[in-house]
């Protein structure tokens, strides 16, 4: 891998910043060097105002990411109209209703606060909206998410939710996820995790799992149908998926999620809080999985089988893997020829920046730059760093939920001895982070902004750029293909075995589309006047 970057080049890029900005941004950028014992990166700290960041807000992380996909709940947004509007059907978290008609994802419900609500308070309007939602929709449960002004004017949405819950006999939970909380979407994930854990998970009356291999999938949002491809494979092996958090998820499944024997964690950033709390409260360990990429999928399936340690399950896992590989390998071959030798950037939210590198690699595409929009240090450096992360003013504003073992339901799923053995061979309740998997010389950037995007593209010259919608058309203008890894450019699924083929097809298409061939008009390369200069003398004479 030829990477044209070193500390000096990096410094030159950062030199365009005002001194203070340079000092701050430098800590968020690493050149990967495996010879060093440990490389520390700054993450989950404030973005400098005026920097064109890709980050969103706590509301986006709470309502937009974690709560929004739950299909049988009505999600009320308490605030002025915009925040509800922008999280209405824009994220591609697909769902099929469990009960006929009970799918509320196509509905956008907002209290549409007006100036008088800001001045006199919006609690009464919110209570009216809840009454109307119950009357019209009769949902299984309701969530209320706060937007910025709600916290400022002091509306007590928790009290409104409690009163409404009593009045209607329905699970109604409120989330104080005002956009200014924390430094990015990440704060909102945490707030949503706390609420779901405290007031939804465990509300069901199941005491026993419905099958021997009952699992939950955490941090899987079913973008483009990813979860369905993963569940297809899991079901063939013999697993019972109790709840998916939260893609295609439902209140009905979530409330009995406590019965699972194992929790899988796909997106570590957005859901690790629940994973931890489920372990503390019910004794259920979690396993870091990655269903993006063929090798990662196989490894995740094998690790799951090892966890349960059942010979039949292990054998069944191998059979399914072999069968799936036999189908997809020949399909991938033509795409590998197109992709071989190319390079990419992988800058995505909080887990895909890591997850997609493996899939790219399997196609022959090297990731020369990767990073996260809103991750924490543990997503880069691994969870071993957790004790060393100092909480700052912004992270202290997000409440930590202290859970204790559930007296009735806590059950150690693994003996301590077995857990210790397994921890050495599978990522049990552990995530090693992204950095360790990256090649020397590659660049790791936290909260990459527009200026850095442009500069790193110029320096590293990737063949494809993968990020989101806000920065999709910037590389396009440069003549560089780009791939949205948040919403898959309206394609997918990309997870699991079949998803890998879809991804390979789409990436190959972005390289081979003839449309790139027309950027330069023919008159730019041909002179206006053409002709030959007549040579003196007769033809054939020198």
């Amino acid at each position: 891998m030829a990477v044209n970057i070193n500390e000096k080049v990096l410094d030159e890029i950062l030199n365009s910043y005002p001194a203070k900005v340079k000092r701050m941004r430098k800590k968020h950028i690493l050149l990967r060097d495996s010879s060093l014992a440990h490389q520390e990166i700054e993450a989950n700290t404030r973005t400098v105002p005026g920097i064109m960041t890709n980050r969103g807000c706590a509301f986006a992380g709470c309502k937009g990411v974690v709560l929004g996909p739950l299909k049988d709940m009505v999600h009320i947004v308490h605030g002025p109209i915009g925040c509800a509007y922008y999280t209405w059907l824009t994220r591609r978290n697909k769902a099929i209703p469990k009960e006929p008609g009970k799918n509320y994802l196509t509905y956008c419900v907002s209290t549409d606060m007006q100036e008088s609500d800001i001045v006199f308070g919006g609690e009464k309007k919110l209570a009216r909206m809840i009454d109307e939602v119950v009357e019209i929709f009769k949902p299984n449960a309701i969530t209320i998410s706060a937007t910025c002004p709600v916290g400022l004017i002091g509306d007590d949405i928790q009290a409104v939710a409690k009163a409404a819950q009593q009045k209607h006999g329905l699970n109604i939970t409120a989330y104080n996820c005002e956009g200014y909380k924390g430094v990015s979407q990440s704060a909102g994930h945490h707030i949503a995790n706390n609420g779901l854990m405290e007031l939804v998970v465990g509300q069901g009356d199941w005491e026993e799992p419905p099958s021997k291999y009952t699992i939950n999938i955490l941090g899987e949002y079913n973008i483009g149908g990813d979860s369905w491809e993963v569940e297809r494979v899991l079901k063939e092996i013999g697993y019972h998926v109790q709840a998916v958090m939260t893609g295609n998820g439902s209140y009905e499944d979530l409330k009995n999620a406590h019965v699972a024997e194992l929790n899988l964690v796909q997106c570590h950033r957005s859901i690790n809080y629940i994973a931890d709390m489920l372990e503390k409260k019910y004794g259920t360990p979690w396993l870091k999985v990655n269903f993006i990429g063929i090798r990662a999928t196989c490894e995740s399936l094998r690790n799951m089988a090892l966890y349960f340690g059942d010979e039949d399950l292990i054998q069944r896992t191998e059979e399914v893997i072999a069968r799936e590989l036999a189908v997809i390998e020949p399909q991938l071959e033509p795409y590998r020829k197109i992709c071989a030798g190319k390079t990419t950037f992988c800058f995505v939210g909080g887990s895909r920046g890591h997850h997609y590198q493996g899939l790219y690699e399997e196609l022959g595409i090297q990731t020369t730059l990767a990073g996260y929009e809103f991750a924490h240090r543990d997503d880069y450096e691994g969870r071993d760093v957790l004790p060393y992360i100092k909480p700052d003013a912004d992270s202290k504003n997000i409440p930590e939920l202290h859970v204790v073992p559930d007296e009735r339901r806590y059950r150690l799923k693994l003996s301590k001895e077995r857990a210790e053995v397994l921890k050495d061979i599978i990522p049990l309740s552990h995530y090693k982070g992204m950095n360790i998997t990256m090649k020397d010389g590659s660049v790791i950037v936290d909260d990459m902004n527009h200026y850095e995007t442009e500069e790193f593209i110029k320096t590293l010259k990737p063949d494809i750029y993968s990020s989101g919608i806000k920065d999709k058309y910037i590389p396009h203008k440069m003549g560089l293909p780009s791939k949205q890894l948040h919403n898959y450019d309206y394609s997918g699924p990309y997870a699991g075995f079949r998803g890998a083929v879809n991804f390979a097809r789409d990436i190959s298409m972005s390289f081979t589309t003839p449309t790139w061939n027309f950027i330069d008009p023919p008159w730019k390369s041909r002179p206006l006047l053409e002709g030959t200069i007549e040579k003196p003398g007769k033809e054939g004479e020198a």
Partner: protein
Amino acid sequence: MLDCTPKEIIERSGGVINPAKTCQPIGAMYAALGIHNCLPHSHGSQGCCSYHRMHLTRHFREPVMATTSSFTEGASVFGGVANLKTAIKNVFAIYNPDVMAVHTTCLSETIGDDIPTIIKSAEIPEGKLVIHANTPSYQGSHITGFSNMTKGMANYLAEATLEAKKEQVNIIPGFVNPGDMREIKRIVNLMGINFIMFPDTSGVLDSPMTGKFVMYPKGGVKVADLRDTGNSKLTVALGTYASSDAANQLERKCKVPAVTLKTPIGIKATDEFLMTLRQGFVKEVPYQLEEERGQLVDIMIDTHSHFHGKKVAIFGDPDIITGLTEFVLSLGMKPVYVLTGTPGGTIGGPQGMFEKEIKDMLGDAGIEGKVKSAGDLFELHQWIKNGPVDLLIGNTYGKYIARAEDIPFVRVGFPILDRSMHPYLPVVGYRGAMRLLELIGNALLDRADRDARDEDFELVM
């Protein structure tokens, strides 16, 4: 699809379900992109800026550059002064625009940040400008946000420097696509009148592929021209809701007479636009435009049977759907439901203007219809369930209702997120009206083809 929407309509007062509007700041951001070398700046939480950039990018499929004050909890408690000052410094140092156009959000408005005072005390490099508009999300809609930022341009920049006004017209196009702005400019050019269009997002949000990314594309109204708007002889505001405030501000500030017209969608509104220019500047309408008009009328007459008597539901932004309603009436169609999410009056002032204007149009045509401002798509859908229509016209969100009720659907307005050519091809002017005829006619005829039995399937229609 939308299975939980009941036919029975109950009185609601808790807010909206399935909105037909969004918040002010996105309109302000869009307007600011219509100034050459301008960087819009969102004074609020990061999420606001992110959402607006995402949505505009989805609609235009173009880079949308904008920055944010990145509020945290501290800023929300102590005020965003430091955030905005830092942002101003960094924006000019890193992204080097000529103009930074700040708009507020519900957050900074609730706190009460005083933007002009902050701008005055900020470090702004020589020759650079910072302008602002107040756009609290708890008032108006994206249309008023557009209007407020456009008014801000007049407020900050327009100057009356000459004793006599110039033979030039200010055109305020309203919240329309770059393709519409290009078409309006083409028409004014054909009329042979000097003009300044502001804002002008053509050349910014429909910029060509060149193999190079530029932060500030070639388009947008130049600051010098914005200053010169104060010297124009007339301002034509196209659209009451998105454009008239800026025109009135210019009249107050620089004594430029203001005329507010409908967005020139359809034959009558385009006629009025041309007549205003013709009378205002004593310029005859050139044959080219007369020919286009003649072609349009020719098609309208030849194909009237495709349209006549069909019931239509129309929703979207007030200026756009006013023109659309008038045009479908010109075709003999029946716009039985007309709904906007935007309040149908002025902020803090009288309401009901929208309803009155549309009801008058319907009344003249002898049609009884439901008309609503500050409405939502949930209610529109319920109206349709109670009285079906033959066609739905609106932005992309209408596709769910169209599918649920199996109605032909024509996409017009903002945002259109699932089809691609709308920002480029106009709906304004005579040629825009021809395009609307094609879109509406095709939708109706495709449906007739789909539903026809084999023996009724026609070759010629």
